[in-house]
């Protein structure tokens, strides 16, 4: 229930986020029993690298408080769609926050908005939309996969969004959205979005609205844009957005100084202390390697690395704090194509385009 409102204390039925480290974040459902692999109900005990936690023990604790694990500790955070996106059980490929946030702004979704989404997938974007539309909005979400519809629907109810969402098992390309002239915005994440576009336009209010299509491949985009144009949509925009994360680290670089002559470009930074001519050059690489490979390490761990480095540092090292880029990051998720349905767009010609 916790997604849709605000509270200070954890209650049974909440979904909470257990934070142990940057790569160990889990969504836990606060309930006494879970079903194990053999289909039996067992006590809800969650296992982590640092030991286990009895989930029901969280009841009565404040959000933001520390939780003891048998071999360490973690923190319980309030669930947000963003945290859900990084912890949710994947049933499909999902959209991540950089794309999701762009979709919300570009589709101009706000409290009271009526939005159509196809397909539902794992519900990553749906959660963000459900937050944005508020208690008076409505999300119609569709998926052609029956099981996914069922699981997603139950999930939305558990998260307190039950009364703002309608989840349907439906192939929108063939059958359309089943609603006409009601939506402020339509979002499509489909293999062949062009087949659903005429239906999407009919779903939009006659006073106009916004449409978005998410596609990984440029060929899909090209075809989508052609259809959007032929349907008379305006303000076509295709873009791509990616987040780059930085790891904040203190780095110290040994200097290479030949006798008394310091290399000119570093001259200004030379401290008055004695230089150490024999410093191992290798350390530069060590630092970078340590940082890069552990984009996912826990905070305590970096502190240790930093401390470790300090031990070996020479006084003459050049030290600075920097944001280190990831050695490997997502390079492409998909192209987002947006368009506006102008008010009073003639919709009778839609069928012939389709």
């Amino acid at each position: 229930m916790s997604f849709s409102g605000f509270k200070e204390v954890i209650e049974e039925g909440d979904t909470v986020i257990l934070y142990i480290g940057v790569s160990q974040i889990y969504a836990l459902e606060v309930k006494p029993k879970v079903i194990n692999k053999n289909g039996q109900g067992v006590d809800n005990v969650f296992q982590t690298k640092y030991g286990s936690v009895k989930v029901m023990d969280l009841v009565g604790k404040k959000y933001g408080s520390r939780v003891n694990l048998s071999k360490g500790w973690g923190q319980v955070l309030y669930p947000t769609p963003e945290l859900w996106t990084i912890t949710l059980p994947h049933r499909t490929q999902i959209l991540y926050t950089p794309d999701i946030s762009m979709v919300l702004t570009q589709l101009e979704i706000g409290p009271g908005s009526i939005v159509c989404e196809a397909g539902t997938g794992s519900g990553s974007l749906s959660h963000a939309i459900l937050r944005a539309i508020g208690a008076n909005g409505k999300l119609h979400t569709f998926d052609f996969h029956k099981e996914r519809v069922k699981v997603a629907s139950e999930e939305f109810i558990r998260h307190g969004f039950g009364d703002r969402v309608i989840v349907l098992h439906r192939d929108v390309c063939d059958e359309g959205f089943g609603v006409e002239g009601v939506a402020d915005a339509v979002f499509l994440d489909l293999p062949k979005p062009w087949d659903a576009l005429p239906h999407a336009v009919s779903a939009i209010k006659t006073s106009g609205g916004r449409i978005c299509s998410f596609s990984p491949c440029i060929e899909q985009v090209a075809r989508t844009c052609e259809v959007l144009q032929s349907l008379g949509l305006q303000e076509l925009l295709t873009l791509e957005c990616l987040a780059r994360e930085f790891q904040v680290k203190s780095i110290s670089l040994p200097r290479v100084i030949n006798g008394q002559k310091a290399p000119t470009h570093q001259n200004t930074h030379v401290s008055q202390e004695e230089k150490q001519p024999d410093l191992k050059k290798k350390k530069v690489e060590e630092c970078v390697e340590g940082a890069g490979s552990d984009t996912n390490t826990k905070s305590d761990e970096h502190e240790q690395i930093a401390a470790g480095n300090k031990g070996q540092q020479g006084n003459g090292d050049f030290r600075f704090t920097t944001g280190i880029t990831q050695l490997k990051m997502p390079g492409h998720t998909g192209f987002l194509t947006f368009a506006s349905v102008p008010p009073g767009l003639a919709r009778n010609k839609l069928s012939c385009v389709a």
Partner: protein
Amino acid sequence: MPLKKNLIEEGCVVMVQKGAYLKTCRVFSGRSYTFGKRGDGQFTLNLDGALGCPFGSSFRMDRVSNKMFSITKIENPVISLDIVTEGGVDNRDLQDDGRSQKLTPDEIITLKNKGLTGKEVIQVITENSSTFKDKTVYSQEKYVNKKQKKYGETITIHKPTIRLLNDMYYTQDPLKIANLRIDTLSQLLCHSNVQAGGNFAVFESGSQGLVTAAMLQRMGTVGHLVQVYHGAHPQREAVDLMNFSEEELLVLSFINVTKLPEATQRDSLTTTTATTNTNTTTTTNSNTTTTTTSITTAEPMDTNEEDETRKEETPHSSKSDEQKHTNEDSEENLIQKDNEKLDCESQENKDQHVNGKKSEKQDQETQKSGEQAKKPSRPRKFVRTQVEDVSMSSSVLEQGIMGLVVACRQYPNDVVKELMPFLHPGHSFVVFSPYKEPLMELYSEVRTLGGTNMRLSETWLRHYQVLPQRTHPAINMSGGGGYLLYGTKVLK
């Protein structure tokens, strides 16, 4: 959205778009508004033809006199692309000698002034171009599109939205909004978890109130948003352009950073009253300045709606920016600024609170009489007095907030330390800065204030030209849209 007006009405803010050009203005019948860059591109519009039409409609510009146009709604925007005919194979025979166009610029202007439509002008231009026929179809299309931008006479009138406002500021000058690009703004909104219901706080400066406006848009009519501001007056330019209803504006309250309640909840109300009282004694002299400024703005032709709004309704802000920046830290000025702010409040009382409350809702006719005679209805900006704002904000902050946003030109770290105590444990904070360095520092400092799950990130944004056989990334892109540090606060 229910009850959201979808029609262009007298007194509402609209966004006029012509090609890539976007500008806001508040529509009043009988007035004309100047758009475009000084010189050739400048044009003056009377927007009466738009009244009663739905937002998002397109209009044809009809020449009334030299640079003056009236507008008429059109159903299907003219596309001049049918001028493109058969084209050549490639550009091997094209000479760039500047002699391909037989018409002189003067002749083209005469054509325009003779009353030919944009499309007809383009037609004549292409016919008089000796090389047009030899260009490839793609090249012809590009040429026509370019000319259409110049001679096109279609505008679209949009409802102001965060997307378009950001777009407008970004095209005018990204630095106007501290290079807060749309993807960064969007991420900021998501990570702050702002939503209808719940208490939120934002500290904003240097971005025209866009962050505040965007958060308010995500909150609708439920919950509380406190804008903590530094200097003489709240940051609300973008808020005023969004056509927020009074109900929506009630969500927002303002508080000067110097008047923040104690995080420990004691004494807050008594301290604020005390401060206000001391200020009242010195208001008189600055009152004169405010009156002067409001007089200067009562011109009939307000080309710059934005400026006009600011001057007219928050008198103190007319001398805002320079003064704010040059004097930011000197103490005497702080006092002076406080006085000015108080003025604003009293001015409001005169201008809006007193005659605003009734007139706003029912009889706009009555409002037009008397002092407001030449100015048709204009929505109230401040829905509360400053004192009410401060006590409202204090009580919201004392209850605790579920999301904190800091997006400012100043060194953000002190602000974050000041406001973090109001944030409920378990909830999120987001800090925006155009620079990475303060955020790197903050990254380690916030840890001691209970920050966890922190990320420092920036986003890449790339636009694409999508055309058959000619799809590629846009030729120009923004090199960076600012940095975000976000995380969650926990109990220590």
